[in-house]
């Protein structure tokens, strides 16, 4: 469930000669790291969406979380003279230069999820982690702890941007609501880390009512830790991502393990739509396409899952 809105000015020039529906197009997709379920799903979404467009052939590269490797991946796509580049940058600054060089060579570039600096790209499609953190905070403040209380936070990998933003947004939202984050630990995005850290948290704060994890796997880990000491029902667990996969957050909410999760859209489908607009329909693209998050609770979990996996 994502809505595309047109912000920002006119987009950079669409490719000079637009071959339209007659042409065949090779699209290069440079992924930061498929080891993250979210990014694997992004690739899968692109693959699925591209199937529907006979003119498209998508080639995937995985930078395995290494900026340099992703620079090489993009260089290789440039060498291959791809007709369009989709990139989900590992980090903004390091990829800016190489993305620019692709863009300057006339290759339209769609940047997903993480931004690059400057405006040497065709269009950015993604969601706002601060906003999502804020949504999570509001949910806690209004639904779970209306008259204040304690929260434990399990953060993403220390040093990663989303970890920072999801933490900051959350803090903004609970400011002045008499809610305090009594303990905050790094869970490195990993399920088992979430479990291990939650073990400790439940020791030092047995009476904690809410655990906010920066992604669903860590929230699930925390749930397991609580289950081990029979506290799974007295504590509310909140995650982020809401991936529509069997091991994802939607299922976890549906099954009642998580109280809520907040969808962090992969932008995969939207990317292919944009590519189609640009290459086949020969239209312009908005410079910025912000995708809205969605709050998932038991009410809408199932429905959302099925909508995301039509079969």
């Amino acid at each position: 469930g994502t809505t595309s809105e047109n912000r920002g000015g006119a987009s950079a020039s669409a490719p000079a000669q637009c071959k339209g529906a007659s042409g065949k197009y090779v699209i290069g997709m440079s992924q930061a790291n498929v080891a993250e379920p979210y990014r694997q799903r992004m690739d899968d979404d692109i693959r699925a969406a591209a199937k529907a467009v006979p003119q498209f052939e998508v080639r995937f590269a995985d930078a395995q979380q290494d900026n340099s490797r992703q620079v090489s991946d993009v260089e290789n796509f440039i060498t291959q003279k791809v007709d369009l580049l989709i990139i989900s940058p590992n980090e903004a600054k390091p990829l800016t230069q190489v993305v620019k060089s692709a863009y300057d060579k006339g290759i339209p570039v769609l940047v997903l999820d993480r931004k690059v600096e400057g405006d040497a790209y065709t269009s950015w499609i993604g969601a706002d982690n601060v906003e999502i953190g804020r949504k999570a905070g509001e949910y806690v403040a209004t639904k779970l702890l209306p008259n204040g209380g304690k929260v434990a936070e399990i953060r993403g990998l220390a040093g990663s941007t989303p970890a920072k933003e999801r933490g900051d947004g959350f803090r903004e939202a609970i400011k002045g609501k008499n809610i305090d984050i009594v303990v905050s630990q790094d869970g490195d995005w990993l399920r088992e880390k979430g479990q291990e850290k939650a073990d400790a948290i439940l020791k030092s704060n047995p009476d904690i009512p809410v655990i906010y994890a920066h992604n669903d796997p860590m929230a699930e880990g925390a749930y397991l830790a609580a289950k081990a000491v029979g506290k799974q029902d007295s504590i509310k667990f909140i995650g982020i991502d809401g991936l529509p996969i069997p091991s994802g957050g939607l299922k976890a909410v549906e099954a009642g393990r998580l109280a809520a999760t907040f969808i962090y859209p992969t932008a995969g489908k939207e990317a292919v739509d944009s590519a189609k607009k640009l290459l086949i329909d020969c239209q312009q693209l908005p410079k910025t396409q912000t995708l809205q998050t969605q709050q998932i609770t038991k009410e809408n979990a199932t429905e959302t899952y099925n909508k995301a996996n039509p079969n």
Partner: protein
Amino acid sequence: MTTDFVATRPSAASVVFRFQSLFGLVAVFIAAVVFSPSRDGELLFLSSGNLFNVVRAMSEIGIIAVGMTFVILIGGIDLSVGAVLGLAAVGSAVLLVENDFSLVPAVLLVLLVGLVFGLLQGIATTLFKIQAFIVTLAGLQIARGLARIWSGGQGVAIAYGSDPGEAPVAFSLLGERTFNGLVPIPALIFIVVAALAILFLRGSAFSRHVYAIGGNEQAARLSGVPVTRVKVIVFGISGFLAALAGIIHAGQLNQGSPNDGSTYELDAIAAVVVGGTSLSGGRGSVVGTVAGALLLGVLNNILALNSVDTNVQLLIKGLVIVVAAGLQGLRPS
């Protein structure tokens, strides 16, 4: 323990060194008690629940480390264990959930996969005389690749029940605790594995061959030790135990995902070395490894209980490992 067959004869000093890992464990344990935060008068660290958490948290690393001990004793190393754990975790999940295997066949098949993977690595090192470091480094990449292919790249969630697409409830026991919810099953399995390994390495003829190969391979061969066979078996054991750990991993987290267990090999090696086993082979023991694993587990736990900054945690762990290894350096002879 086994080392007394290969190490110097007991002297005041050498005893301390032989049991260095135990002393180290005690030391760290005491430190943990001292620094343990307390809540309404109870020392959090000592609360039984917490202690069992420590063991549970270390059980997978511990099991891997036991196999690693054998490999290191023959002068080898196995960097693939983490990846094999991931492969096994994925395997269990896929077989139980997607292929509707029943429990026993699934577990056996996964264990077999780990065993065979290990044996193949052993064959590669011995027959083609390639250093274990390289073979298992490649093995790491290969196992990861296979896991990603097998799982389709995404973690495979395990739901329990009797319908198709659900895993037998028995499997979820791996996430449970027995003795009125106190002792985690994985901890029990770890203890059993360790006990068996200790007994085995203590008295068996095979273990003598293991130590001999680590001590001087050529001499061992000329003494009639079936060097190749022993080495291959040892790598098989390591693969097998890694697979076992992977099954536990999947059972604990109700999911098998292809990236499970990454860098576990380093933790396992650290446990072995902190446990007083020499990376150059021929001297060491499983007792030490178990102590080493627990030592690192306690360390993790107390740092977490005091919610020490992650970076500082890295520094502290690094130093502890060096110091532990340093003690071995000072060891007589």
